[in-house]
């Protein structure tokens, strides 16, 4: 009896400690949802795909005016041409993605065979390389055309990131992305969460900080500051530099796992890329 008590005590302690440190992805998502619901009680859940414009009324008016003549349109058209133009070997994107081009909702996903998070940008380049084409650069340039086209075709499909239970490495990748999100970095000592959870809706100088939920729904994004469309990983790079941290490699493990964690928190929301931002 004593032994049993001791055992159950140990078990309880172990459970107590572990639940303190490792929360399930479901619990992570619930915590975000509650946080934003309390912070922005008037914002309907579906509106988070509009990023900062879900909470910034003045900014929203300007944005809606911009959306009447979307600056990303030429990029979608160029991407469509890429999608339909065969590679030198006669094959094309269509052969790699027979269900395409509306495939953005399938990414990022855990690739058990490769043992890594597979992103859409990476999958597109894998297709190119398998067909003897040079891979595209991951931040700037024509990768944004094909990503814009796929995003546009995928509009309305729901984000549905799965962390498969049959491979513990998938959960490790998720946890790695989570740790990245909450780790303070750079000389200014901010984490992603410092701005986009803790201070979402607050004003930094003249800019309203956007909530993290729904942030990935509208990439790639045409940014007026860039004067062009850029990838999600280009944006990650910019965030890291702003806090005076050395950025990581676009499509490297750090940003892929971050994308995995971040995308999971937007599960259930509709894709609405490409987007337009200041």
């Amino acid at each position, binding site marked *: 009896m004593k032994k049993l008590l001791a055992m159950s005590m140990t078990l309880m302690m172990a459970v107590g400690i572990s639940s303190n440190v490792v929360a399930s992805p479901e619990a992570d998502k619930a915590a975000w949802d509650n946080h934003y619901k309390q912070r922005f009680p008037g914002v309907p859940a579906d509106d988070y795909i509009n990023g900062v414009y879900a909470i910034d009324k003045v900014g929203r008016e300007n944005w809606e005016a911009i959306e009447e003549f979307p600056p990303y349109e030429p990029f979608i058209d160029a991407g469509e041409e890429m999608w339909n133009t065969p590679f030198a070997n006669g094959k094309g994107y269509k052969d790699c993605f027979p269900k395409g081009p509306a495939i953005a909702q399938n990414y990022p996903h855990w690739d058990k065979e490769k043992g890594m998070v597979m992103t859409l940008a990476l999958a597109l380049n894998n297709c190119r390389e398998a067909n003897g084409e040079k891979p595209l650069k991951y931040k700037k340039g024509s990768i944004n055309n094909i990503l814009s086209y796929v995003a546009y075709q995928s509009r309305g499909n729901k984000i549905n990131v799965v962390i498969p239970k049959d491979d513990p490495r998938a959960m490790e990748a998720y946890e790695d992305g989570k740790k990245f999100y909450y780790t303070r970095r750079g*000389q*200014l*000592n*901010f984490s992603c969460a*410092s*701005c986009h959870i*803790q*201070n979402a809706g*607050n*004003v*930094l*100088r*003249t800019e309203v*900080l956007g909530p993290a939920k729904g942030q990935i729904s509208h990439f790639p994004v045409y940014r007026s500051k860039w004067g062009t469309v850029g990838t999600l990983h280009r944006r990650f790079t910019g965030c890291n530099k702003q806090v005076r941290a050395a950025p990581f490699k676009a499509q490297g493990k750090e940003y892929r796992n971050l994308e995995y964690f971040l995308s999971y928190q937007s599960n259930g929301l509709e894709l609405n890329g490409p987007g337009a931002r200041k």
Partner: protein
Amino acid sequence: MKRKYLVGAAGVLAAVITGAIVAPQAVLAAKGASMVEEGKKIAFDRKKGNCLACHMMGDGASPGNIAPPLLAMKSRYPDKAKLRAQIWDATTANPDSTMPPFGKHNILSASELDKIVEYVWTL
């Protein structure tokens, strides 16, 4: 006549003494004023303190609202050293503070920090 002379001498003496005391104080005050002035410049400089990114303070234009407005600082921080410690590394007092550790991370030099403290203390 003699008395008048004495009074005159005393007056001169008094003037000399007060002069001797007041003059260094005036110098100090001037130095303090320039510290405050320089501190304000550093506080407003986007590449230095950039305090306005988050705090409303003084007559600074388009401040952010991430952090509390800097008002009544003398009553909030009667101990100037505590104010300095807060700017040096605010996460010591509150681990979740968003404020960058200006001293600890060498964002500002020790003398820049001193000047900002002087300025912020006047708010």
